[in-house]
């Protein structure tokens, strides 16, 4: 018979797996970071469920440490993400896939074709309505 412990463990395992999938598939740096936090949530559920099962406060103490590490990780990841964004003006993690020398050949080719360059509108004095962009193109970044 499956008791209350196993149901909590199953929820924790599902959250951990979803976080792992999100970390592997999302290309936004911030969402990768949040997916990692979701994996930590799954682990925390496991820890408190075991603590309840054994009637012991050790599981909750471990969860406090998990919270501490998550807070440190969030602060450091924020600083790193801001620095990376300042370099390339984008949150795309694919831009950072080649950290080696520039003249080295990459062993793994990107699986999808490169994104089309953003459509640049000529800088004119704004008059009338803003033209509608075509569907696949990205509108230019609006400054000020």
């Amino acid at each position: 018979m499956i008791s209350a412990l196993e149901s909590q463990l199953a929820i924790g395992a599902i959250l951990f797996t979803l976080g792992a999938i999100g970390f592997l598939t999302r290309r936004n740096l911030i969402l990768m970071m949040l997916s990692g936090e979701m994996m930590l949530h799954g682990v925390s559920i496991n820890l408190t469920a075991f603590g309840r099962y054994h009637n012991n406060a050790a599981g909750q103490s471990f969860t406090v440490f998990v919270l501490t590490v998550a807070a440190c990780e969030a602060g450091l990841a924020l600083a790193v993400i801001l620095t990376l964004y300042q370099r390339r003006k984008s949150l795309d993690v694919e831009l950072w896939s080649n950290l080696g020398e520039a003249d080295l050949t990459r062993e793994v080719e990107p699986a999808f074709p490169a994104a089309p360059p953003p459509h640049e509108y000529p800088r004119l004095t704004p008059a009338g309505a803003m033209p509608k962009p075509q569907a696949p193109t990205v509108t230019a970044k609006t400054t000020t």
Partner: protein
Amino acid sequence: MNPLPEQWRMIVPAALGALAVWMLLPRDGKRRWVLGSLCGLVALVGVLSTVRPVIDDWAMDGLFYLFGGGAVLSGVMMITDRNPIYAALWFALVTLSTCGLFLLNAAPFLSAATIVVYAGAIVVTFVFVIMLAQQAGAATYDRRAFQPMLATCAGFLLLGAILYTIDASGRGGEDARPQFLPRVQIAEVTPNPLSQPRILNEETGETDLGSLSSIGRSLFGDYLFAVELAGTVLLIATIGAIALAPRRAQGHL
């Protein structure tokens, strides 16, 4: 031993969930979100009906279904949403559901602390960073997932293995546990009586597990050295974040 086809109660929901997540991940063109949502809901109901809690208390069971199902649904929505702001808000919902599960696990202090740290600090900060760094319109890197098929297969193979182990160890009782390795005799350790939860009510067996004094006795009794280490880690992380953060003089964000 359990042959693989007898484990269909775990394998079928895992496969359906994998199909749902694969269909819902962002990609070019239209997503089959109706079919994906149906597959995901069937998978969730299947898993929750297999590992249903047996507490014999309809209020606790209902709260478990609410928080557990809410956590899983919000997690799926978070990793499949194209808009990063919405994904961060779905992550806040995941955090709230997790805090509900903490409450069910007799951890009210942890529940409050998690809400303060995650929803109050992390999610708000990251929403601000997304709003600072977001380009106008949906960026291409949010509209295309990276290798959705491989990642989904790997993740749900892991999930299937974990669910199989949970199911196998939970069903057979004491006989089914040493399936893979013989049980190792662990040396008996007498726990520290100061850090154990105190019994409040002898008849019902109610203890003060999860209260502030119980966690405090455990933290500052058994894990005092680890608490000091955690404080040091926080300090070093603060210094590192300040050292790494971009300066305004070199160009504002």
